[in-house]
């Protein structure tokens, strides 16, 4: 069985492997804009990014605008690989002009959002494993099928790079994405509603249920809330994340 955690140095509560298995199951199947094979290829490329020579050179440079070609598996377009590798290795220096260049190269905004969701989800689980000294879980075998190409009509362009569903606009098929309160980081991937659903599932076990986040009294099973937020803040600062 995947995500058994039999070799974990400490007991892992049951809701974590359950959520990880669900994430892998979603990853293997067709998404909104990518097939299962492409989604697994995106995940694989996210794991390859730290070994890319161009990414290492860019990361070390004062400006990330270093020309070159990524080391990659050849299963995805150059624009997709650029998106994946930069998200993994240098997300703190992404800019609107970088995003717009990707769009001009033919990577659509919704497929890009789906990439963000896949990369972020795989990083989340891989970092959990690494932090506990565990080997990474093998990626799942892709399942056949075509992407739904579903794009919510309520998504609009606001200040972010990508269109989002307005805070009070998640009705109909998107009613489940958030309840009365939400934040930009939840709405960020709403152009691909399933990416938000996946985010909610993982957040509920890696952090808190999203609806519980605003209440500073709510904590995790093994950590008080200030301890949780101290780690959260330090990880965000190390990534130079302003949000």
């Amino acid at each position, binding site marked *: 069985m995947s995500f058994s955690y039999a070799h974990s140095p400490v007991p892992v509560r049951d809701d974590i492997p359950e959520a990880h298995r669900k994430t892998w199951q979603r990853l293997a199947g067709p998404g909104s804009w990518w097939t299962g094979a492409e989604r697994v290829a995106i995940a694989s490329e996210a794991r390859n990014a730290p070994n890319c020579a161009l990414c290492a050179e860019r990361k070390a440079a004062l400006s990330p605008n270093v020309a070159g070609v990524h080391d990659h598996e050849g299963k995805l377009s150059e624009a997709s690989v650029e998106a994946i590798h930069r998200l993994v290795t240098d997300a703190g220096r992404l800019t609107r002009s970088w995003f717009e260049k990707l769009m001009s190269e033919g990577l659509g905004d919704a497929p890009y959002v789906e990439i963000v969701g896949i990369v972020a989800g795989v990083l989340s689980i891989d970092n959990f494993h690494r932090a506990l000294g565990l080997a990474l879980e093998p990626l799942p075998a892709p399942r056949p099928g075509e992407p739904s190409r579903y794009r919510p009509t309520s998504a609009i362009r606001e200040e972010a*790079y990508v269109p989002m569903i307005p805070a009070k606009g998640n009705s109909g098929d998107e009613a489940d994405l958030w309840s009365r309160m939400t934040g930009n980081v939840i709405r*960020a991937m709403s152009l691909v509603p399933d990416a938000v659903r996946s985010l909610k599932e993982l957040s509920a076990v*890696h952090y808190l249920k999203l609806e519980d986040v605003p209440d500073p009294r709510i904590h995790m099973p093994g*950590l008080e*809330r200030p301890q949780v*937020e101290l780690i959260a*803040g330090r990880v965000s600062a190390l990534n130079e994340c302003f949000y």
Partner: protein
Amino acid sequence: MLRASSKLTGSEADLHAVMGAGATHTGVAHGQQLVAFAEAAVAATHEGDPALATARDELLAAAGPAALVDAAAVVGNFQRMVRIADGTGIPIDHGMNALTAGMREDLGIDRFGSAANTAEVSGAAKAAGRLGQTAAAAAMKLASRLRK
């Protein structure tokens, strides 16, 4: 949220600890081990990283297995959330921008590249935000006392 939850529990977290300064006096239980673990986990490139193994052992000894599992989960969660925020270029939520502007300035967060995604706050709004933070902190402290 670190400040709010800290006030609520009657402690006084040092926000500078998130920037890597003063990690020996975080104002949070086992804060030194938690920060060291977070730093080692973010820096590690493989599961056998020796610095991460040391940080993991120290956190386990100090806080126990459930805390270690949660700490690993939170590291994973925020390695994800920062990619979502920076990858989509979202600004800080409107209500929070002015409220946290003074704190961001104090901590030096404004120098981060992704600050460009959020509109700058005027001096007056920043001052109002500082007042709001002070009032919120006082309310949290009162709530903490009432709970006791």
